[in-house]
């Protein structure tokens, strides 16, 4: 049936193109930016288990539940028709050498590690979710994003040797579909019960050990407004927030402890977090950043700025400056008069840690003279 096949190829390529556009076409409407990673029922279930709350809200529960329902009825139909990463990996199929470089399937193991670790509150390996992986491609300009981002070129390359080795042998989401299918589920579970038991054990171990490696809790990184206390562990590094930030202050962290590897953080080179923006909180598909209303965002305190007087143009050089005061949208900079010169002092009760001051500070000696210090867990400003 050549027509059915060519129809499928056309649909897949079309979806791949659309998904690519959603991922790298930004800035786009929030639903477009969020849709690809938010389609994964594995992400939404594992995260909800780990965070002990169904964070997705009514609207954003529909796409992953629809995908799950599809799996219950039709198994891997999503993989064969819709998954953009699957389509990408299937592109070299015709020229693939069809060697068996990975003889055993590890998808069940990965799936059960994720579930078991999530039960203990840390969705380890969830960053392997193919839709989070595909979304990551949007942040290719960020050097550190290539740490988890290398998955895509590696498995694309491996597909030249073993066709779709990722999809058939490793993908935890695909395995979840096999398991959810009402026809195959029982048999699949029985077949892989060894990996089920090993996965439970390894997942539990990972959830206990990982957070203790190079531990530096709370993290010194300033996190996007709405980030939970367990941001580093629950973020799947899909980088939807990195790409969606209109002022590009969400960057991929370089260095830090293992649990914070390549996680998004705020960096204030030029701009601060905009007073009237809550985009990142609206499009995080993992609940690592919770949805904030405009008012909640306005009250959210992600850090507190501190003036380093010895570097400050006003304090150290007696210059008329107060650029920090100028740029602060919350009137959190107080003026102290020193010999006729206005000098800045931060009011920590009003400062949100938005970084507008740090971004704009013109102190030349050390680059800047006012710095935001992270507040984790984040707080709410009263009044």
């Amino acid at each position, binding site marked *: 049936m050549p027509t059915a096949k060519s129809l499928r190829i056309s649909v897949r390529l079309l979806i791949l193109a659309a998904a690519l556009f959603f991922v790298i076409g930004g800035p786009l409407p929030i639903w477009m930016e969020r849709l690809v990673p938010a389609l994964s029922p594995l992400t939404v279930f594992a995260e909800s288990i780990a965070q002990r709350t169904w964070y997705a809200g009514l609207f954003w529960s529909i796409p992953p539940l629809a995908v799950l329902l599809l799996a219950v009825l039709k198994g891997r139909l999503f993989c064969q028709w819709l998954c953009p990463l699957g389509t990408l990996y299937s592109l070299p199929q015709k020229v693939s050498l069809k060697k068996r470089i990975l003889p055993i399937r590890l998808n069940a193991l990965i799936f059960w590690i994720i579930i078991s670790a999530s039960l203990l509150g840390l969705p380890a390996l969830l960053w392997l979710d193919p839709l989070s992986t595909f979304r990551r491609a949007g942040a290719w300009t960020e050097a550190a994003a290539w740490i988890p981002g290398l998955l895509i070129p590696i498995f694309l390359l491996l597909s030249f040797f073993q066709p779709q080795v990722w999809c058939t042998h490793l993908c935890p989401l695909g395995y979840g579909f096999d398991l959810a299918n009402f026809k195959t589920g029982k048999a699949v579970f029985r077949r892989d019960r060894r990996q089920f038991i090993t996965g439970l054990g390894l997942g539990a171990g990972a959830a206990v050990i990982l957070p203790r490696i190079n531990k530096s809790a709370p993290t010194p990184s300033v996190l996007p407004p709405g980030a939970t206390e367990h941001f580093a562990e629950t973020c799947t590094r899909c980088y939807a927030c990195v790409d969606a930030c209109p002022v590009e202050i969400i960057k991929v962290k370089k260095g830090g402890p293992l649990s914070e590897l390549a996680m998004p953080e705020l960096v204030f080179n030029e701009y601060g977090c905009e007073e009237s923006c809550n985009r990142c909180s609206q499009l995080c598909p993992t609940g690592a950043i919770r949805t904030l209303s405009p008012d909640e965002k306005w009250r959210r305190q992600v850090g507190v700025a501190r003036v380093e007087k010895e570097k400050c143009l006003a304090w150290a050089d007696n210059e*008329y400056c107060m650029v920090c*005061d*100028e740029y602060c949208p919350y009137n959190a900079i107080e003026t102290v008069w020193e010999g006729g010169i206005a000098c800045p002092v931060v009011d920590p009760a009003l400062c949100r840690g938005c970084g507008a001051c740090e971004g704009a500070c*013109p102190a030349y000696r050390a680059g800047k003279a006012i710095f935001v210090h992270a507040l984790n867990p984040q707080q709410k400003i009263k009044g």
Partner: protein
Amino acid sequence: MDNLSRRNFIKIGTAGSALLAAAPAALSAASKEKTDVWVFEGANNRALMEACMKTIFENGGFGPNAKKVALKVNAAWDRTPEQAANTHPELVDVFLEKALESGVTVVIPELPCQRAEKTFVNSGLQAVADKYKVKMIDLKNEKDAFVDVEIPNGKTLKKERIPRDFLEADAIVNMPIAKHHGGGTLTICMKNWMGTAEGRKFWHAKGLHQCIADFSSFMKPTWAIVDATSCMTSQGPQGPSEDMIYPQQVILSKDQVAADSVAALLFHDSPYAVKYLEIARDMGIGETETVNMNIQRIKV
């Protein structure tokens, strides 16, 4: 070539003002010519600006054969018109209406402090510009727009990069809102030019007030129009401020220093509470003494 001739024109102009600088007191005493300043006062912003534009056209408009006007408003902040951090859109609306009617084209270049997508839109100024199909240029995203200029009379600031639009224009109009400013004490016309200077970030380290005065010795508008309808007297330049005053005035002059000095008196007892006005007096950039001005107060 257009560009060059404009540059030469400015050079000649600044050379002239250098002469003025040599003996400001002597000159102003010698010529009994007082600096004209018009202060329009009334509750209705539209009516205020209509009166202002009428006066502009009664006094030479934008100059003979003027075709291009570059307008410098303040659209730097993500704030609403009521919060008075940007030039009031109703005033700019009337300006554009009357200016375009006179046959000139207008561009509005601005180097905002926050993203133009926020500041141009929420200030209400983008809507006004769109209404008249006038281009607001977001200088943050048009790095190519800037050209090097020399500031012959600058004491500290001797070079700067400014948008080409101001050099190519036949007339430039400075139309800020008057408001409190943490580092500059007040921002009015002279301070408003900072929103055209690519290197403004370095001014604070060099001496902010001297740089403002230096730059204003170069950027001389055909008309200075001050929006003093609603003004912040604290928490400026962005606000929001709890200390608002509502003078409901529009101040007009060909001399931006005179316009600033009159506007400064709405906030302070003396214009010299603002250091760059004191420097402007000493450098002879414009008139700061109200006794040397012909101030016409017009109720609208």
